[in-house]
């Protein structure tokens, strides 16, 4: 009998100081001076986990990611209590990665030290850009200088594993400006860089009032030159938008991309959980929690629990669901991962893999599911071949 996939934990913190115009995450701007219901929220997160606990099935937790919103709005003592509570309920893997997302405008040295003491061992800092004009256009609440200070504080507080989120293709951005952002980021010596192109998502301010974005040729130049710059600084691209120093890939994200399982707790958090019944039949379920922070808190004493909805991933949807993640990795995944993480035989995929290989979008390696360089550039076209109705 096959084993269940590795299990990670995602924790959502739904508040931020101010909602950014490009952001379509479940985040709610509350200003700088609002006192957040920290204690109640941590209680709710632990209760939420208790309700999902049956899905753990004896697995240890390989990684934890605390995302938002702006998780760094909550105090170190709040996270101390949260992580203590998690340790009582879950078995942490020996090398567990615990990441917290931080906004440079919300942290100071002492807070970072407290985060580190609580067991958080990786920070993901939302820098986005160092250019004052861009930060303003993006609605960020911090300056480039603050971002730099935040990274140095984090390091002094004992964080040796730091990711920076950096955007490109910003309104009116030149090639030089985009490369300047990368150079400043590299100077801070992070271990990981999420370098992604600004995309206008539905239900955002930018979507309804689009800013003037660089044209396709300039975007291409930025991507081309930026990629070379990062690679020359010994940052290897291992996913469409993720670059890491050797051995510093994000475990938590790798688990998503390899179609691992994850619990999702907190307002609007999504989880993906597999189970195998005694007859050996696999079931993969997605479930999500109540989105509105206040409504989420009220679910604490509600017999319905925190879950807002759920859905079993149908067998015919599995190829797309799996590959939409796996093929984002530049090395792809081992073909065995398909069977190990979906419970389905490879033959389910074969005809469509052949079609993708014929179009030069997938490598011909028999042991890997891996997009070619062309396939990575046209991943949407590649994935269309695996659409359930294709």
């Amino acid at each position: 009998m096959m084993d269940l996939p590795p299990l990670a934990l995602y924790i959502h913190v739904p508040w931020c100081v101010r909602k950014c115009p490009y952001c379509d995450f479940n985040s709610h701007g509350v200003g700088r001076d609002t006192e957040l219901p920290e204690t109640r929220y941590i209680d709710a997160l632990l209760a939420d986990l208790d309700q999902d606990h049956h899905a753990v099935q004896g697995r240890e937790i390989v990684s934890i990611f605390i995302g938002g919103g702006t998780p760094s709005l909550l105090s170190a003592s709040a996270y101390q209590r949260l992580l203590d509570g998690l340790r009582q309920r879950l078995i942490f893997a020996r090398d567990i990665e615990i990441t917290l997302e931080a906004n440079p405008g919300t942290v100071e040295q002492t807070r970072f030290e407290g985060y580190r003491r609580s067991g958080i061992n990786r920070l993901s800092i939302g820098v986005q850009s160092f250019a004052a004009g861009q930060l303003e256009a993006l609605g960020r609440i911090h300056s480039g200088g603050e971002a730099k200070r935040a990274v140095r504080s984090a390091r002094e507080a004992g964080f040796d594993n730091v990711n920076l989120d950096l955007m490109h293709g910003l309104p009116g951005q030149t090639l030089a400006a985009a490369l300047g952002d990368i150079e400043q980021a590299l100077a801070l010596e992070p271990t990981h860089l999420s370098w992604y192109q600004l995309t206008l998502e539905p239900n955002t301010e930018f979507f309804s009032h689009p800013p003037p974005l660089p044209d396709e040729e300039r975007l291409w130049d930025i991507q081309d030159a930026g990629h070379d710059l990062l690679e020359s600084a010994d940052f290897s691209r291992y996913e469409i938008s993720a670059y890491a120093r050797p051995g510093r890939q994000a475990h938590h994200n790798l688990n998503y991309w390899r179609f691992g399982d994850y619990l999702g707790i907190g307002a609007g958090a999504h989880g993906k959980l597999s189970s195998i019944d005694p007859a050996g039949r696999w079931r993969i379920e997605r479930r999500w929690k109540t989105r509105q922070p206040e409504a989420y808190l009220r679910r604490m004493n509600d017999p319905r629990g925190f879950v807002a909805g759920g859905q079993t991933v149908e067998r015919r949807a599995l190829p797309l669901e799996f590959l939409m993640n796996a093929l984002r990795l530049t090395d792809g995944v081992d073909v065995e991962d398909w069977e190990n993480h979906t419970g389905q035989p490879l033959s389910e995929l074969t005809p469509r893999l052949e079609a993708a290989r014929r179009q030069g979008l997938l490598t011909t390696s028999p042991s890997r599911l891996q997009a070619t360089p062309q396939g990575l550039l046209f991943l949407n076209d590649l994935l269309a071949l695996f659409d359930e109705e294709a």
Partner: protein
Amino acid sequence: MADAASNEQLKFIRNFSIIAHIDHGKSTLADRIIQFCGGLTERELKEQVLDSMDLERERGITIKAQSVTLDYRAQDGNTYQLNFIDTPGHVDFSYEVSRSLYACEGALLVVDAAQGVEAQSVANCYTAIEQNLEVLPVLNKMDLPQADPDKVAHEIEEIIGLEAQDAVRVSAKSGLNIDLLLERLVRDIPPPKGDREGHLQALIIDSWFDNYQGVVSLVRLFDGTLKKGDKIQMKSTGRDWEVTDIGYFTPKQNSTGILRAGEVGFVIAGIKDIQGAPVGDTITHTKTKDVPRLPGFQKVKPQVYAGMFPVSSDDYEDFRDALEKLALNDASLDYVPENSDALGFGFRVGFLGTLHMEIVQERLEREYDIDLLTTAPTVNYEILMDNGELVTISNPSKLPDMANVSEMREPIVRATILVPQEYVGNVISECVNRRGVQLDMQVLGSQMQLVYELPMAEVVMDFFDRLKSISKGYASLDYSFERFDAAKLVRLDILINGDRVDALALIIHRDHAHSRGRILVDKMKELIPRQMFDVAVQATIGGHVVARSTVKALRKNVTAKCYGGDTTRKKKLLEKQKAGKKRMKQVGRVEIPQDAFLAVLKVNE
């Protein structure tokens, strides 16, 4: 009840149609008349009740004939039965108009008092006059400040030759003078003639297939009386049926159990196939089967042809079934299987015009949920071979080897265009561009009437839309087929990345081939979305490239940011992309959208 006294009742019946240009207010007037006669309560009176197909209502046009029977209590104290038979108002459907008129003794010619007479109405009006109908001019839209009824009345007299000085002046919108109009209708339109005791002779004006009732036929009784339970015979097939339901529309279906000479209504007789009750057929009783057939209608011939192909080849069977069902209600629809190298299996479908084509495509997609690709429409060509054989083709890719062709002939139409004087220059140059030959030009009222001979191919494409746009919407058009004429025609092939795409081939006049080829490849460049690789579009004649353009490759197509746990966002994005490809067909490696197949229709945009 069929006694002598019953024939007396004929004088209280009026059968009429309304002839009007599309937006001159026919439907609103019909609604108003129905409302005035109490055919529907206020609550039931949806806007424009007679246009019952969704598509008809959306496009504000009538496609099929419909009828409604109303009771009108006139000022003379008598109650009249008014049978109103609706007629389509678009040039594509003029055949249906003459059918509707056949059931009537009179027609209201409704003219917009602000806009004046338009060509289609003139043509329909002449049809009515030829069929000996009493035509009653009506000036509508009197509520508009720019209404100029005296001028328009004068125009009617000048263009149509109809006395119009005392034409009723109404506003269907406000209800002004509807009472007067109905009085005039009863006074001037003659009652039907007929013998209710005579042998049954009923003409099928229209038949349609209803999922619950089978074939429903709209009939006009000329002689005799028909009751529920009667045994009837179709003169064309000689088959016998039993009437299971009979009555009229109010516009609700109202089963009266009987129809008498002079009346218009529906008959249902358990017929499952529309061919069992063909339009134009005569119904009589089985016991009087020697009654002569009424002169029926000429079978309508399609004017334009296009290939229709399911986007997904899995839909072919469904598509064939859908066409069969659609043809049940549309005798003008003509189709044969077609196999395209580029598009796979589909059908070559004949239509009355391009509007008809659009409507059929929309109905197939909406009512039968099939995604279709339609090729550019083409007319029939006659090809005279060296061996004397005459071949008719409706598909450019089926053109025989030119080495053996002695002559190509194209259909010519006679087109009548009415247009205000200030736009005449525009219209003339448009006609010249389309190889038109002027036959006549004269001033009629405040308008000019231009008569041209034009190649049908030039007219059926986008001529009507083009006329509208160069005359601020005022020009109107009517046309009819005249003959086939020899012409210097060539086939323009389109190559996508070096491969000839049969479904994109066109037959075109040699003098236009280079310029149109250029415009066409440029238009296709706009319409074919950028893909993973460069796409070369070439126009060729006999293997020689006359124009080319390139759709530059996209740099990339990938979602930048991965959204961790919430996969629904990513899936939505991919679904959006998929929806964009819904109407695309993969030809070789290239995705070609529906719009590109119809690019030839859009070159003037």
